[in-house]
């Protein structure tokens, strides 16, 4: 009304609903179909976690060192940071020096964070 040239009514979003229905329907139908169509052979060996190799011992749900999670989440963080560089690279000429300085600020903040992580010995494995 004020900033859009076209007003969208709820009915205009019907294609999204149909798409959603199709996505859910596909998953449900394939799950039912695989169970119905696939052959079922049960035996003691078949129902083991691993059919061959070393015998499984103990519980699968053991606590994992928090270091793994830290590394994983830091990887995601810096991965996303790189993704933010792409739109800047595409609009590099258009944004000019303004974009350059904004990006430098952004990267500086990320580097400060990285320096903090290194200083806190998060990346050290002992």
């Amino acid at each position, binding site marked *: *009304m004020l*900033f859009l040239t076209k007003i969208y009514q*709820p009915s205009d979003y019907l294609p999204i609903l149909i798409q959603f229905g199709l996505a859910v329907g596909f998953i449900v139908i394939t799950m039912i179909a695989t169970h119905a169509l696939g052959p079922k052979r049960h035996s003691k060996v078949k129902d083991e976690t691993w059919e061959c190799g070393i015998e499984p011992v103990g519980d699968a749900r053991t606590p994992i060192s928090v270091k793994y999670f830290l590394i994983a989440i830091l990887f995601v963080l810096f991965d996303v940071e790189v993704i933010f560089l792409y739109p800047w690279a595409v609009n590099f000429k258009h944004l000019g020096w303004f974009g350059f300085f904004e990006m430098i600020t952004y990267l500086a903040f990320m580097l400060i964070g990285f320096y903090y992580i290194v*200083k806190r010995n998060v990346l050290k494995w002992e």
Partner: protein
Amino acid sequence: MPPPTKNCPVAVKNNHVQNIKPASFLDLRVLFFILQKAIIILSKLLAFSKKSYLCKLRNIFHQKMLSLILLSVFGITNLFLGFLRQRNIVLFASMAFTFITLVVSWLDMNGTLITFDASLNGGMMANDKLSTSFAFVMLLTALLIFPLSTHYLKDKEAQPAEYYAILMFSLVGALMMVSYKNLIMLFVGVEILSISMYVLTGSDKHNVKSNEAALKYFLMGSFATGILLFGMALLYGAVGAFTTEAIQTYVSANKVVDSPMAFLGFSMMLIGILFKISAAPFHFWTPDVYEGAPSLFTAFMSTIVKTAGIGATLKFVTLFGFIPLGASWYPAWYKGVAIVVILTLAIGNITAVYQSSFKRMLAYSGISHAGYLLMAVLALSPVSSVKAILFYTLAYSVATVAAFGGLMAVAGNKRKEEYAYFNGLGKTNPFLALSITISMLSLAGIPLTAGFFGKLFVFLSVFERGLYFLVVVAVLMAAVGVYYYFRVIIAMYMREGNNEPVQVSSGTIATLLIANILTIALGIAPDLWLNWFM
């Protein structure tokens, strides 16, 4: 005034000066001349700077909401100060940083309206008088809370630098929540504030209660944020923009009957924000989270988060209710909010009576105070309810900080938060007992404390609107409140304790002193705050 005698004394003085020190007189004249020239050059420079780079620099500092930038940069600085061996520096630094931000935001207060990024759809944030007043309340409260944290400086397991940094980041979110001009900024502010609080709630890593509280707060908070976002999407669908101006134009141009989508969006957004201030049907997370979180962060949650939430609610509801604009909208929603107010007051006050833990009682009392604040929001008169809310938030925050400071001194590290641990405190530590008493009196709303005038202003604003039944309910519930606040006072002065001495750190003493002086000063001269700021 007598007319100045020009003839005799001046001549004598001139003769005197010229005869003895002609050179120095000349020097003075030269100095004066140079000074005059310098002033002229400076004024010319200043005039020039209005169109030049200097002015641009000044404008950048003003337009970009300096307090937000300062808080973020100071927070990061704080993280690195944590590497120093001297841990006290972190506390002093964070207090100094918060104080600088307080001064900056106070300077902004008397300035004109400043809009951040005005080129974009009418601005993302605005530094108006209301937002700076809220910012002042929150920064002052933060400044009072910081000295309570001295026990973290001695604790080897604790990370005070990170705690202070996260508190400062959460203050950034709180400031955004009270100064938004675009719903996206409201959402970003809510998220920054909430995520910081989720982390701090679980900061006591080896305590099961703290972990439970963090998970509960996170899950419930995420759902509330989801509802807020759904509402925002619906509102955008109806209005076609996120800015407050566009929403106001839409509300004044359309009747509520013709725009059910916008009304649904409004309701859902309101529910999302009411969750943050723990109003009644959305309050279930509050007692567990307040009890599980370390007391320092509970104090932060029950004061600053609540102030930010009520500021956001006031700004948001104003868009849909001010009579000239939203004449057809106010009648549509005020009954629903009135029910929320009554529920909040009743559940908060009556459940608080049955608590045996002081901290849980404070959690429920926080719910009930959210009810009083919502009452003033519901009154929605342009002057008196805004004044009432500002006064009430300050009075409530200051008294609550004092109460939590007292609780932390009594409970120590052992989490002894039952009423019984306050027994005999009047004998073992009279100062602590007196300051807890003053804060309890203020929370109960006894005259000569700030809480009394807070309640009075709230009731007056509701009276002005004509919602008399609400005032009746609120007065009844305030009477219930007196009971459980006085239980603490009775325990401290009339029960026999085990006479174990209670140690109070100097930081806690400073906070309690300032909080109590403020409580009494505002209780004796309430105009002090009202005239100064609004």
